[in-house]
Structures are given as C-alpha cells and as structure tokens.
C-alpha cells in the first residue's frame, strides 16, 4: 500500500520488482554456502565458485553469446559502459577518431565516451533522431567514415522506448571497421535477445531492471576483442602473475573482475534467469505491446496531453508531456493515488532538448502490469488535469 492505495508500479524502466525466487536464492546463498569465489580450497568456496560460474553460463545462454568466456560480471550497465569506454576505447582511439552516439542516449552511454574522447583526442558526434522518435539511419550512414571507430547506441530508449535496429547498425558500422557497443538496459526486460544474431561487439545490461538484484550487470564482449583489451581495475583475481614492478593478466572474463565480485547478486541473477527463460517471450512482447497501445489510446482522452516519439517501434516505455503541468507535480498527484511513475529528464538531457522539453512524466510497464493499472494511470492524469486546470 502507498498513501492508502494499492501500489500501481509503473516505474519499471528505473528498476523492476523482484520475484520471491530471487530473494530466496540470495538468502540461501548467504545462509548455506557463503564463501568467496576463485580463492579457497575449502568446500564452501568450491560450492560458491561453482554456483557463480554456472550463472555465467546461464547469462551467456540468455544473451545468445557463443561462450561463457564472453560474459563479464560488472556492477551494472553504467560500469559495463565505462569499462568498454576506458579499456577498449582507451586503447584504440587516436586524435581525430570519431565515436558516434545517438541523441537518445542515457547519460551513461554518453559521458563515458566524452571522458575517453577527452583523454585520447577523439570526438563524440550524435546521430540525430526523427520527430517520430526513431534513429535517422540515412544521417547515420552519412556520418560513418574511415574515422569512425566506435558506434555506441541504446538498444531501446529509456525515455521514449524507441527500439533501434541493432542488426542494421552493426552491418553498417562494421563496413567501415567500427565496433558497436550496445546499451541494452531498457531492451533486456522487454525483448528476446541474441547478441550473436545482432552481431554487436559489446552488449551491456542491468540485472535489476530484469527482475533481479541491484549491484550486478552483464557485459557481453566478442572474445577476440576482450582478449586484446587491457584490464580496467587492478586487484585480486584479475592477474596471472604479479611482481613488484609489473604484472601479467588473467584471460577474460576474470581480467575484468578485480576484487570480490557481487556473489550473492550473481546467485540472484541465476535465479531470475532460470525464472524468466521459462516465459513465452513472444507472448510477453505481445502482452506489453498491447498494454502500451491501450495506454496510448486511452491517454488521448486527457486534454492537452501528448506522448513523445510515438511513431517509433518501442518497448513498453511512454514519455508523457501535459500542457501547463510540470511532470513533478503530475508525479506527486499520481503518487497520492499510489501510482509510481518517473518524472524528470531521465538522465537524457540531449533528448529532452531534441523534443524541446525539460522533463517528462514516464510510465514504464513490466510483465506484471495490467490493463486495470493502465486505467488507474489515465484516471490519475485526469485528476492532474482537474487540479491544474
């Protein structure tokens, strides 16, 4: 219950609620096999290590990677993108090289590239999006060239939900020898994934948006690329041999997992993967698409309301703007009715500028949301209209 009302949770793009199997698996790990991984010779450590590495195999299968060696566990999508920017970007970028991002990127797939560009003398350019909300592929084609080293793109926008065609982007980028880095944080909970079919070079996603625990992310990288990359952070577990003056590195993925990893979170990830791979994902996609289509249709009844980037193929994320009402005020009115949405710039200020707004109200739907909750949202927004005229 929230403020005396049953919770209507429509902030799934920020983080999803967790199924009990996840909580139980993490609890069981701490109670029964709590030990560090890849270290002890004792039985508990062996049990923890086996469980941890089994999750890596599950993650590889979920993402469609060829091998578990291509899966690095990080702290989350932001950490994954920083890792790729600093290690891959840091070692290949030269002055004058170009990194292409898009106007719809979350700050976490923009700022890491700005940081590495500043260090290497490369430049960051943004592929424009159309008024309908999709990526302008013609403009992208014209921007690609011999200087393009990296194309960093969201699989789905965290603000308007627009889905980007990763297959086509990979084909086009590979033609000029560029590497494709995909921010999959918003796509992973909504679309069946196959990184091999998409042919992207890196794919990063969060676990907490995928009904799993916070504190852990999955990073896929093509094996040859991971093997050529220098370490990110130094510490225990990522070395082959250490001397006082220099060291040699463990092979991937351990090379990129310095220090004690988020073991309990990995166990939670294993549990959630086991849970969601049993879903019929075609049915899930169809269900969520029906929910947002219904929401878009019913929202038309609210005067002075529009949905941004409605023309694009999208995951179940809607950004709403209401004439004369700031999203924060609308969010507070909805909260008073137990409805949780996000209000603000959603860490995507360039996209806000692109649409000429400073903030939006975002409703994002997950697998457990219902048609009745769509109605609650619409009624809540009618109330917003009544309060603010």
């Amino acid at each position, binding site marked *: 219950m929230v*403020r005396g009302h049953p919770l209507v949770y429509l902030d799934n793009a920020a983080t999803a609620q967790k199924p009990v199997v996840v909580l139980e698996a993490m609890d069981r790990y701490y109670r029964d096999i709590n030990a560090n991984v890849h270290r002890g010779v004792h039985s508990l450590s062996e049990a923890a290590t086996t469980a941890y590495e089994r999750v890596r195999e599950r993650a590889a299968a979920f993402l469609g990677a060829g091998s578990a060696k291509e899966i690095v566990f990080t702290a989350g999508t932001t950490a994954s993108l920083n890792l790729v920017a600093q290690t891959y970007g840091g070692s290949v970028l030269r002055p004058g090289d170009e990194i292409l991002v898009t106007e719809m990127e979350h700050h976490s797939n923009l700022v890491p590239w700005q940081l590495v560009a500043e260090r290497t003398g490369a430049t960051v350019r943004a592929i424009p999006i159309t008024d309908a909300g999709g990526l302008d592929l013609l403009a992208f084609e014209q921007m690609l060239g011999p200087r393009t080293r990296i194309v960093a793109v969201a699989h789905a926008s965290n603000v308007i939900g627009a889905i980007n065609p990763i297959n086509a982007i990979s084909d086009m980028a590979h033609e000029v020898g560029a590497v494709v880095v995909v921010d999959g944080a918003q796509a992973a909970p909504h679309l069946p994934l196959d990184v091999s079919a998409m042919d992207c070079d890196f794919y990063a996603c969060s676990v907490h948006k995928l009904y799993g625990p916070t504190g852990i992310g999955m990073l896929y990288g093509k094996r040859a690329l991971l093997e050529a990359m220098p370490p990110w952070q130094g510490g225990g577990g990522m070395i082959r041999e250490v001397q006082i003056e220099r060291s040699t590195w463990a092979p991937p993925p351990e090379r990129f997992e310095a220090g004690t990893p988020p073991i309990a979170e990995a166990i939670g990830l294993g549990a959630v993967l086991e849970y969601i791979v049993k879903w019929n994902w075609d049915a899930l996609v169809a269900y969520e698409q029906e929910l947002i289509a219904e929401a878009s249709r019913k929202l038309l009844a609210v005067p002075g309301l529009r949905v941004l980037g409605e023309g694009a193929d999208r995951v179940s994320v809607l950004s709403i703007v209401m004439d*004369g*009402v*700031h*999203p*924060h*005020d609308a969010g*507070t*009115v909805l*909260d*008073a009715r137990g409805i949780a949405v996000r*209000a*603000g*710039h959603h860490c995507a*200020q360039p996209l*806000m500028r692109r649409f000429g707004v*400073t*903030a939006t109200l975002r409703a994002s739907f997950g697998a457990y949301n219902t048609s009745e909750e769509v109605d609650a949202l619409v009624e809540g927004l009618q109330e917003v209209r009544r*309060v*603010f*005229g």
Partner: protein
Amino acid sequence: MKSDLDELYQSVILDHNRAPRNFRKLEDASAHAEGRNPLCGDVYEVWLKLEGDRIVDASFQGQGCAISKASASLMTQSVKGKTVTEARALFDGFHALVTEGEAGRVPAKLEVFQGVRAFPIRVKCATLSWHAMKAALEQRDRGIGG
C-alpha cells in the same frame, strides 16, 4: 479534513504557478544567482536590487514545477523591502517550515508551503529559489554578484 495533496497544492500555490509575480529580469540588479536542481533539470535565476543593506526589488525567471515556481514567486514578494539580515532569517524560517513543519517564523502567506513536509522529495523544489536568493547575497558579499 484536507488530504495531503490538497494541503500541498493550495489555491495560493496554484495561483502563483499560473501567474508568477516578479517574473522578469531586473536590469539594474545588484545581486544575481542561479539555482539548479540537477536531479530534475529545474533551473531559476534570481535577481535582487539592493540599496545599502535593504532589498528594494527582487525578481526571478526560469522553469520548474508548480511548487518551485510558486515558491520563487512568493519568495520575491517576501524579501522585497527586507534587510539582508531579515532576508536570511526568512530563509531559515522557510527552511524550518518545509522540513520540520515549524510554523510562526515566516509571514502567514508563506505557510501555504507547510504541506510540502508530507512530501520530502519535494522539499528541494520549494527551497530552490530560496537557495538562489541566499547565494546571490553571498556572492554580492564577496564582490562577485551583479
């Protein structure tokens, strides 16, 4: 009994949101500062005109939610005619009002913001322009305002 929501969005606040007072740039300002909430992107500029130690005019511009805009509007009205010391005391009183619900330290018309206390996440909205006002006075003291 009024609901928390009705307490928050009182008619005075809705009125100042729709028609903010002193919503302009002061061309001959002697102190100026910007208040920005990086969490939500709200941004306000505040201008103050001082004669000696007294604020003789105050204005603001910018964009944000109803709470932040109404608060800025009422802030400019409240500090006009006050000395710098009085304006700082008003800041403290307003802060205590929206964080602790402590009434009696600010003029009655500012007490419409008492309802903000039930929505802790909105306290920053209510105090954004007040912080800018305080910063403008501090910058002026250090000789970098105007």
